[in-house]
């Protein structure tokens, strides 16, 4: 399995799902006013957008595992671990 098309599709899917959520949420805000549902949909869209690059790294880890590419599995795992570390550190120090 070629990694490029898979990664491209993961990114594309994340983008269009988050766009759909954000457009729906913003549209709802304008039409019906900001209520908890519209704000929730908007928040979910932004959260999905922010999560997409991380999901991309996770997807690469699976692909490298399928390819039995040990070096890149390690590289990708380190990236994920440091990301998790940064996030935890940022969340507790804030």
């Amino acid at each position, binding site marked *: 399995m070629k990694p490029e098309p898979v*990664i491209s599709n993961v990114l594309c899917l994340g983008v269009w799902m988050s766009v759909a959520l954000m457009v729906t949420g913003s549209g709802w805000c304008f039409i019906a006013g900001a209520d908890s549902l519209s704000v929730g949909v908007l928040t979910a869209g*932004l959260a999905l957008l*922010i999560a997409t690059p991380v999901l991309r790294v996770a997807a690469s880890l699976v692909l490298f595992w399928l390819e039995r590419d040990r070096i890149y599995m390690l590289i990708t795992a380190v990236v994920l671990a440091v990301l998790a570390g940064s996030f935890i550190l940022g969340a507790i120090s804030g």
Partner: protein
Amino acid sequence: MLWIPMEQVPMDSPLTFTLILLISYAAGLLGSLAGVGGGIVVVPALTLLFGVEIKQAIAASIVAVVATSTGAASTYVRDRVANMRLGMLLEVATVTGALGGALLAAWVSARALFVLFGGLMAYTAWNMSRNKRAADRDLPPSPLADRLKVHGAYYDQAAQREVAYRVTRLGWGFTVSGLAGVASGLLGIGGGVLKVPVMNLLMGIPVKACTATSNFMIGVTAAAGAAVYFMRGDVRLAVAAPVALGVLFGAKTGARMMNRIHGNVIRIIFVIILALTAAQMCWKGWR
């Protein structure tokens, strides 16, 4: 001059939403072509034109970096203009550097660093503008690059031919990517402006592959920062949503255009953004 204070116009008004969307579209377009996050457009526009608080503008600009990267990368990866393996390898240095930079932030003077990095970028902009591509000179072979299989090839639509290149000087790439990470963690600048020149000038990578690979990488570094801002509640939805949407569509457009544009044009766009960033950083350090 356009001046829309937040107090007078609720941010949820369709007019403000549309204006932010359009400016962000331009930022996403430029950022995706140049391999940078577009913060240089988003932050001044939000603070100066719309009176958004600086903290919220910075949070929105980090969301914009994620959007630029994610919106354009699907195209760049599919067309193999972004070198995925190289990007993932250098990401190790960038994310580690960013974590280190965030930890250092309490201990070092950001002021001096702004001037230092600003000077470094001005020098780099000058070098890039002279078009001394590494590919024109003899490149040392890199057994490590062979072993890590980071060499790349893509079809250049502007030149209408397959472009194959060999990557070298991975050590330089790793060091500068780490520094770019430190700068983004410490100063909040996107790392693209540092990574693109070193890939192009030293590592033997064609400029399109540099900006596309940088674009691919910046989203990961920014995602951790964006998530933290998000959890702290600094991401104001009324600002971040039009920014994210505009940038996503701009980056999609940019990514589709990029392969048809001549490499030299991409280089000039990048040099201009680099020079502006350098000036902005020196100013931040001096004032």
